[in-house]
């Protein structure tokens, strides 16, 4: 069943050239999609059009078969609650505790007053504790976020997205600021969320090898256009060079494992 359908989506910032130019693809429920492409290709722009953090210029985004092009403010909030977002720089409120940051994921469901005062129900708090436990953060629940390591901060970011009970997770370079072992924990966590909870995941990545290892499907973007849409299995070095617009031999690629299995 299609969860998300992007239809001829274009985005232009002011009068610059198009950052996205006629993007079209469909994502089914439960898919794990990686988006790769060179810097400035439009990967972040694409994710932000899906949850309307920025307005699209033309085209449409269908979520659950519903057009989201012209959402009134109230419906827009509901739309966003169904989509969790994870960022390269975690984007937590550093002065607040871990659990407070996690509970921020519930704000979209709350009345203005309850959100302003930070009133959360017992069920919400319980869910926050459970999610933190499942991510191995129960010891840090009351720590301030600026006392955490990068990997821990990213897990708090994931917890904040999960407590939204989202149908879709958008991850904008979630491991770009992490060391390899923390990055592996985060990617394993995302994979686990995808398989165990059945949450659809779209993740922007700079590391082709990570995309090939974790994603079921890889979409390559260059200059706002889709260059390839393939399974990791079908992704050849030639296609990857097309995505990055580079000559063969100019990229650091590690195909060893995948193609040995193939």
């Amino acid at each position, binding site marked *: 069943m299609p969860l998300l359908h992007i239809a001829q989506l274009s985005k232009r910032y002011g009068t610059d050239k198009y950052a996205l130019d006629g993007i079209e693809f469909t994502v089914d429920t439960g898919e794990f999609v990686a988006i790769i492409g060179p810097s400035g290709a439009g990967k972040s722009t694409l994710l932000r059009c899906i*949850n309307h*953090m920025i307005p699209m210029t033309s085209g449409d985004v269908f979520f659950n078969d519903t057009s989201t092009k012209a959402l009134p403010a109230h419906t827009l*909030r*509901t*739309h*966003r*609650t169904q*989509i*969790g*977002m994870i*960022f390269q*720089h*975690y*984007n*937590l*409120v*550093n*002065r*607040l505790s871990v659990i407070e940051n996690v509970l*921020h*994921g519930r*704000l*979209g*469901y*709350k009345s*203005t007053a309850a*959100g*302003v*005062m*930070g009133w959360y129900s017992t069920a919400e708090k319980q869910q926050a504790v459970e999610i933190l436990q499942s991510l191995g953060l129960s010891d840090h629940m009351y720590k301030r976020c600026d006392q955490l390591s990068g990997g821990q901060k990213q897990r708090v*970011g994931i917890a*904040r*997205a999960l407590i*939204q009970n989202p149908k879709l997770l958008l991850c904008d370079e979630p491991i770009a600021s992490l060391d390899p072992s923390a990055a592996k924990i985060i990617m394993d966590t995302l994979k686990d969320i995808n398989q165990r909870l059945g949450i659809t995941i779209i993740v922007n990545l700079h590391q082709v090898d990570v995309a090939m290892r974790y994603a079921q499907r890889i979409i390559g973007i260059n200059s706002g256009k889709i260059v390839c849409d393939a399974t990791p299995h079908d992704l050849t070095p030639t296609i990857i060079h097309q995505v990055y617009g580079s000559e063969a031999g100019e990229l650091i690629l590690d195909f060893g494992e995948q193609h040995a299995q193939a």
Partner: protein
Amino acid sequence: MQSTTKIILRPWNAATLILRTTIISLIVITGYAFTTFNTRGVDFWAGVDMLGSNFQALLLSPQLKNITFVTMVHNLFITIGLGFLTTIFGAAIALGFALLAAQNLAPRWLTVIIKGLTAFIRAVPTVLWVLIFAVSAGLGSVAAVLGMTFHSAGYLIKAYAESFEEIDHGTIEALKASGANWWQIVFQAVLPSSATALLSWTFLRFEINFSTAIAMGAAAGAGGIGYDMFMASGYYLNLHEMGAFTYAVLAFAIVLEAGATRYKASLSK
């Protein structure tokens, strides 16, 4: 091989030229002024001597004469109260408007309007605002409160708005992406992230308002220790009493400084 050309560290350009011309002119003007003062027959060294003994009377033998110690403390608290009240009023007004003046929280046209207005308010000195309000309220404490509040608000709107603008854009984006609305973002992300900065600015403004309140006591008849100082210096010509007031003000300034430092430390730990 040894190079013989001289290496110039500061090449001449318009900026250095202007700077040096200014410094040299200032030196010349100062020298000229000192040689041409109208001293009205007062001997320079006698003047220095008198200044020394005046300071001695002021600082080394403070003594109250026309009012009691209790009255002095009471009047000090009137001045503190004036400074405190105007800071709190100003801060409350500023908090609301600063949210509308911060570029990451309000539409651009609104921020431009509010920032423009506050720039105007700040450009007019506090004393002038007090005098302007004195037209309708009469010279006295009401005009002082209104004028000082007005200028404090103008100052704090700018300071608060800039603190808001400094907070990480990503944090706001993250809450927005989870469906939070503007008020929720303000209270759950913006205010917690900028609390220390807001507090620092408010304390700084309180220090400014305290000293302004002393001046207003004398200049605008707002009462408090400033008025006592005015009387001691201009009416009773009593330097010993003046010294006592100075120490009272100094004592409070030290307490304020220590308190502010400690409070900020406890907030940012």
